[in-house]
Structures are given as structure tokens and as C-alpha cells.
């Protein structure tokens, strides 16, 4: 492979949104390059490729395979050395990709919030645990507690159960009144309702508690049990794994690095999915958490719009309203209860990369100041985890991102074609 690649349309992220964008753009005859950091396309939701994905995904996988899209699997976007260029890196090499237009389908990550014991081995995200199982973690006969908020808890529980785990309990922080309203509103989305019913069927017998949350993970060197607040009472349960996720957050690092406008944590886009930067589009969870149907639709719109098929893209645009309304439902009914941000004790770590405690962060008024004095957010994850926690706990907004986007080999930063102009 030469160290510099050219493409009309670069698409970052090969989940449903990126796949749909690639399919639509290829159909317009454009040269498309799809970049994804996993070994196979599918994103988080269809992780593991067509064999493990639901039947509804198979046509998307097939269309992608039949398309002319160039797939760069296992590559991460490391940096933006110049406008119109991305520096990509895989475990062995670095690569510059020059593009005409860019579609960002960077997906989402779980919101993890600190509580006593959350850094013990055996405690993961709720979706994180699902991903580990899809990736081969053996959970047969393991006792598992899931907690947090949102539909992901149910999907994760179903995966774990299918893999032979004993899901002891699901603790959903939203109160019953919110869940009932969400359930009622779902009737406008028959497909989602059917999905929910199917999940409920698969989860028959798993206790599902509302207005409930984890108080603490217990254990010395590894998770041994969990202390839960279940409505008005508390309960301590022994368990082997604890998955806790407080919903999803759009991945916006690349968008921010490209100076795309972000509002309420997601990319701002127009009806054709273009960001505030001309020629840069954002699709799927990056524009707001709304699930796979929204992602597929937005991917198609952007794939068409970016290749000049504006009329076709415009024709699809009104369908987004329905998906956005669903996204708004999720947002509203699974909003965090105040108790969730009060769980950290003074000695609870908030930044686990740099071992920064809740007590030491409470001394500061801003993310920047806390960062400089405690190194919070300056470790390997560069604030991807503690940034959201600090926003939820202290109301701090992030302060300037610094390249590279992810830890990158020094040698990759020296990719020769980057150095167009040597300093005089």
C-alpha cells in the first residue's frame, strides 16, 4: 500500500451510518474510502459482522460487500495534518488519506460515571460488557448485574443471557413515571415496540427495577458484589460482573478537531447532514443518540448529498423528523436523576488514568484549572471518560483538544508525505 491514498469521499466509521453512507455514495459512482478501527465493519451495534448481526442488518452488509467502497479496517484517525488530509494508523503502519468530502460516522461511547468501587476489575460499562461478550468473553454461569439507564441495558442483558450468563437484576435509574411515558410513546414506533417486546420476552424472569441504581461495587482486588439502591430500599448482592452505563454520548473528537459546530454534545447538521464546515458531514450517533434506524437514514442522506445527488437526499430528509423525535424521547425519558451524580465519595477516583479523586477535583472551578493542577484528563484516554464525568458532576465544559486524536506512534507522526514544507 502506498503511504498516500486519495478518495472522493472519506467515511469515518463503518457502523450502520457509515455503511449506509458508503453504499449510497458508491451508487452515485463516487470513489469511496471507509475507515474503521475495528477488524470488521458493523460498528458497535453490529459488532462481529454479518454472522452475529440481526437478519435486518444482512442486506446492509451485502450491499456494502457488493459496492466498490475501499474498506480500511483496523485504521484509526490519528490526526489532521492539513485541510483535506487525515493521518491514519493501524498497528503496523501510517497512511495519509486525502479526500474531497468527509462523512463522519464516529458513533458513540458509554457515559461512565464514578461511584465507589467503579474501578475494580469486573466492573465495566453495560454496553462494554456486551461488546466483551461479542468479542469472545466467556460469561457462562457468571452472575451479572446491569445498571444505569436506557434501552442499552436491555439489549446488553439479552446478549449476556444468550451467552449463558445469569443476569441477576437490571437497575434502571429512570423512575417508573418516565418509563411508562416512554413505553406509551413507543407505540408510534411499531418496529421499536416490537424490538422492545422481543427483548422483554428474551429477558423473562430477569428482575427489572426502576428508580434504582448502583451505590457501590464491593470487593478487595476484584468485584465480589454490588450494593444497590432499589427504589426506597437497599440490597447487597454477590456477583461476578457489574455493567454500568448511563446512556450514550456522541464521539465528537474528530468533529471538534475539524472545527465543526457542536451543540449539546452532538454535531450540528443541516437537513442534508452537512456540519458547519462545508464538505464535512456527520451522521448517526455523532449527531445525537437515536439508534440504528436514524443512523441508516442519515448515512444514506449524507452519501447522496456528498456526491451531488441533492434532490434524492432532500427527498429523504423529511423522514428524519420521526427519527429525531425518537431521539428526543430517549433524551427526555432517560435523563439522569440527581442522585446519580452524587454517588462519588471523596476518595472515589474520577480520572482513572491519572488517579485523581473526587475530593481533589472539588477544589477547582474549571476543567482547565483542574487539569493543570491535578492532571485530570491528561492520561491515556485524554478525558474521553472523565470529561463526561466532570461535566455531569461539576458542570465543567471541556477545554481545548490537543493532537493527536488518539495515542499515536511517534513514527506515524513522521509519515513522510506530511512534510510538504520544511521549516526554513
Amino acid at each position, binding site marked *: 500500500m502506498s503511504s498516500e491514498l486519495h478518495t472522493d469521499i472519506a467515511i469515518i466509521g463503518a457502523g450502520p451510518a457509515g455503511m449506509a453512507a458508503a453504499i449510497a455514495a458508491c451508487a452515485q459512482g463516487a470513489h469511496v474510502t471507509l475507515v474503521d478501527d475495528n477488524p470488521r465493519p458493523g460498528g458497535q451495534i453490529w459488532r462481529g459482522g454479518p454472522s452475529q448481526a440481526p437478519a435486518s442488518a444482512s442486506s446492509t452488509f451485502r450491499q456494502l460487500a457488493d459496492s466498490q467502497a475501499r474498506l480500511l479496517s483496523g485504521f484509526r484517525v490519528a490526526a489532521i495534518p492539513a485541510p483535506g488530509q487525515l493521518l491514519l494508523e493501524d498497528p503496523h503502519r501510517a497512511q495519509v488519506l486525502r479526500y474531497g468530502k468527509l462523512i463522519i460516522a464516529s458513533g458513540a461511547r458509554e457515559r461512565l460515571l464514578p461511584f465507589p468501587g467503579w474501578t475494580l476489575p469486573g466492573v465495566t460499562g453495560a454496553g462494554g460488557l456486551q461488546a466483551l461478550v461479542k468479542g469472545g468473553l466467556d460469561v457462562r454461569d457468571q452472575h451479572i448485574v446491569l445498571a444505569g439507564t436506557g434501552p442499552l441495558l436491555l439489549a446488553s442483558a439479552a446478549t449476556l443471557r444468550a451467552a449463558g450468563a445469569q443476569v441477576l437484576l437490571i437497575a434502571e435509574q429512570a423512575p417508573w413515571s418516565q418509563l411508562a411515558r416512554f413505553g406509551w410513546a413507543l407505540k408510534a414506533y411499531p418496529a421499536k415496540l416490537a424490538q422492545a417486546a422481543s427483548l422483554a420476552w428474551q429477558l423473562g424472569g430477569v428482575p427489572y427495577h426502576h428508580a434504582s441504581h448502583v451505590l457501590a461495587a464491593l470487593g478487595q482486588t476484584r468485584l465480589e458484589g454490588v450494593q444497590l439502591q432499589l427504589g426506597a430500599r437497599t440490597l447487597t448482592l454477590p456477583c461476578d460482573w457489574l455493567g454500568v452505563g448511563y446512556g450514550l454520548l456522541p464521539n465528537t473528537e474528530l468533529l471538534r478537531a475539524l472545527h465543526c459546530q457542536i451543540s449539546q454534545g452532538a454535531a450540528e447538521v443541516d437537513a442534508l447532514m452537512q456540519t458547519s464546515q462545508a464538505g464535512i458531514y456527520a451522521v448517526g450517533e455523532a449527531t445525537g443518540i437515536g439508534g440504528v434506524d436514524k443512523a441508516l437514514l442519515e448515512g444514506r442522506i449524507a452519501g447522496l448529498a456528498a456526491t451531488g445527488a441533492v434532490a434524492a437526499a432532500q427527498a429523504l430528509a423529511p423522514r428524519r423528523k420521526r427519527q429525531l423525535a425518537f431521539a428526543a424521547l430517549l433524551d427526555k425519558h432517560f435523563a439522569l436523576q440527581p442522585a446519580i451524580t452524587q454517588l462519588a465519595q471523596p476518595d472515589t477516583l474520577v480520572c482513572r488514568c491519572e488517579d485523581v479523586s473526587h475530593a481533589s477535583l472539588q477544589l477547582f472551578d474549571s476543567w482547565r484549572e483542574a487539569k493543570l493542577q*491535578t492532571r485530570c484528563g491528561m492520561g491515556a484516554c485524554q478525558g474521553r471518560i472523565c470529561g463526561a464525568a466532570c461535566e455531569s458532576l461539576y458542570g465543567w465544559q471541556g477545554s481545548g483538544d490537543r*493532537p493527536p486524536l488518539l495515542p499515536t506512534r511517534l513514527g506515524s*507522526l513522521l509519515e513522510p508525505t506530511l512534510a510538504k514544507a520544511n521549516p526554513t
Partner: protein
Amino acid sequence: MNPVMHGDVLIIGAGIIGSALAEQCARRGLRVAVAEAAIPAAGTSAAGMGHLVVLDDNPAELALSRDGLARWQARRHELPANAEYRACGTLWLARDEAEMQEAERKQAGYQQHGLSSNLLPATALRKLEPALAPNLAGALQVPDDAVLYPPVASRWLLQNAQALGAQLWCKAQVSSVDDEGVARLADGRLLRARHIVIAAGNASATLLPGLPLKPRKGQLLITERYPQRIRHQLVELGYIRSAHASDGDSVAFNVQPRATGQLLIGSSRQFHDTDPAINWPLLQAMLSRALEYLPSLRQLQALRSWAGFRPATPDKLPLLGKVPGHSRLWLATGHEGLGITTALASAHLLADLLCEQAPALDPTPYNPARFGPWSLADQHHPVGVAA
């Protein structure tokens, strides 16, 4: 409007220079206030390496850096642990015989001033730092140089000042100053003091148009944590040429082992680039240079890179003293890349001048008057500040 604060000294800027000066003035019993436009120690003080180094390029630089280092050394046990003071010493690296001769000259200079240093031939150097490229000719080791983590050290100085009664005004953007000891804040408040010291780094020039000060951009990169493989601050002998080049862009090899196991990699110098974003070609030139000296860096993970701006005067010496033609308006800025090393020395010198005591160091080379007079901003139209 009546001034809201009366005191002996108002210091504008809570970077390491302003903080050190605040502590020194407070220790002398002066009533001190510090006005910080944003948050303390978040400008140039947060962007640099924190290398405490004696530089011998000219007598004035040597005197100030030497005094600064000695003062840090004397207080090393007072510093909080997270200031990460480490007496790792500097190795000035020679690539060839010509540079080795330069190392010898440098050693003679240090010796003359009673500073210890050791010439290391190639074999000894390899033993000391096996990760260095095998083709280096040798090095000059300066064992007393040290490193620290500037934001924490700077904040510590400010807290010492506050403990002695100094007032800190954060988010207090000063929009103009006059020679009557009155500073006007952007929100209209007035602060009054017997003396006003501008220690605002590059922003000082917005209060004093014509100030001979230019931002000189520098870029750094830090790696992930690794088991300690480097034990000294490593600097190429060509560094001083880069540091003292009067114009143009330059890079010089400069690597620092942090207490965290991270490596901090520098350095670059640029005038005329005021964009805080990373300049990629220059970052690459800097990293290429680093790989020449430390080939194994290639496989390390780069975590973060950033740029900062050194406040540079034409002769690379700081501005410490009265604003020419003024009696109550002072300057403490322009330290270029030596502000961390010389903060305590600068603070002592200026505090002596403020208290009308004879400083231990000759203040002449740092006197702002050496660049001739310049005029104050028109008080009714402050420059560069939104009303």
C-alpha cells in the same frame, strides 16, 4: 467610581512570575493584590517544560538563571510532591568533535563561575543514557540542573502569597493602567495601589503598546507513560543557537523525563506564527531531530502535543524594573524560555527594587529602559481589549 482595592503592590498576571513576585512582596510585609485575566498559571507557565537550567550564553543570563536555580534548590523540600521537583541534571549532547570542543568551552565557563559540570566521553555517555544514538561524541553533564512541573509550582507560590494576605482577583481583565497607580478592569472596576507591576507575559504588550516584546511560539509533545528509560534532561549543544536565533524558525533536540514516566519532547522556536494550533511541518522537524538522538522514540506513543508562546525581548533578557519615564509602573516579564528557572530570582530582584533596596544582582541588564522610552496606551482607548 472609587477604587475597590487599595494596597502597596498590584501585580497584573498570576503566571509563575507574578506569583513568585506576589509571594516575595507578601513576605516583605507589603499589601499585595494579584489581578489575573483568566486562571492562574494557565498561560506560558503551563505550556513550557519546567527545565531549571543554568544558561551561560551571556553574563546577565547566567547570573539570573544561576540565582534562580539556587533559589529553587534551596526550597525544594518546601515544594509539594506534585510539583515533581527532580534534580536530574542536564546532559548537553555533542554530535561530533567540533561540538565536543564547544562542550569543553562551556565547561570552562561554568568552572570560572564555580558551577560544577563533567565532560563525558562517548563511552561514559552511553553508560549513563544507553538509549542515546551510539554515534554521539560525548556530553557535558551539569548535575545541579533540575526539572519541575510548573503549573503546580506556580500555584504553590501564589498560595503562599495568599496565606500571607495577598488578594487574588481571578477573571479580572485589566484594560488600562496609569502612572497614578490605578488599573481599570474591563468591567469598569478600578484597582489602586502604590505600585503596579505588569507581569502578564505576552499580554503585557496590550497594556503597553510599543513594548519590545514578541510572542515566540514553541511546540512540545508528551508520550504515554513508560518504565523510566531516560534519567537526565537531554539537550543538544545546538540548543542555544536555536534559542538565540533572532529570527526564523528553528528546532533543537530537548527531551525531559517526567516523574510520571512520560517523555516530554521539544523544542521549536518561531516568530510570526501566532496561531495556537500545531504547526505540523515544524512538529515533524522537531520529532525527526529527536529521533536522531533517541532512535527508540519512534515506537513510543505520542499522547498530546501543544503550542505555547514565550514572551521574547530583542536581547532575550527579561524586562525587570520601571517602565521608562514612569515612577509607579513596573514590568516583570519577557523571560522568553527561562521564566520557570528565573522566577524566584526575578521576584527577589524586583521586590528589592520596589522596596528601594539594593538587589544582590546587578539589575542594569534587565532594566526596561535599555530599549529606550515608549508611550502608555491612551487611557480612553485601551488597546486590544473589548470594552
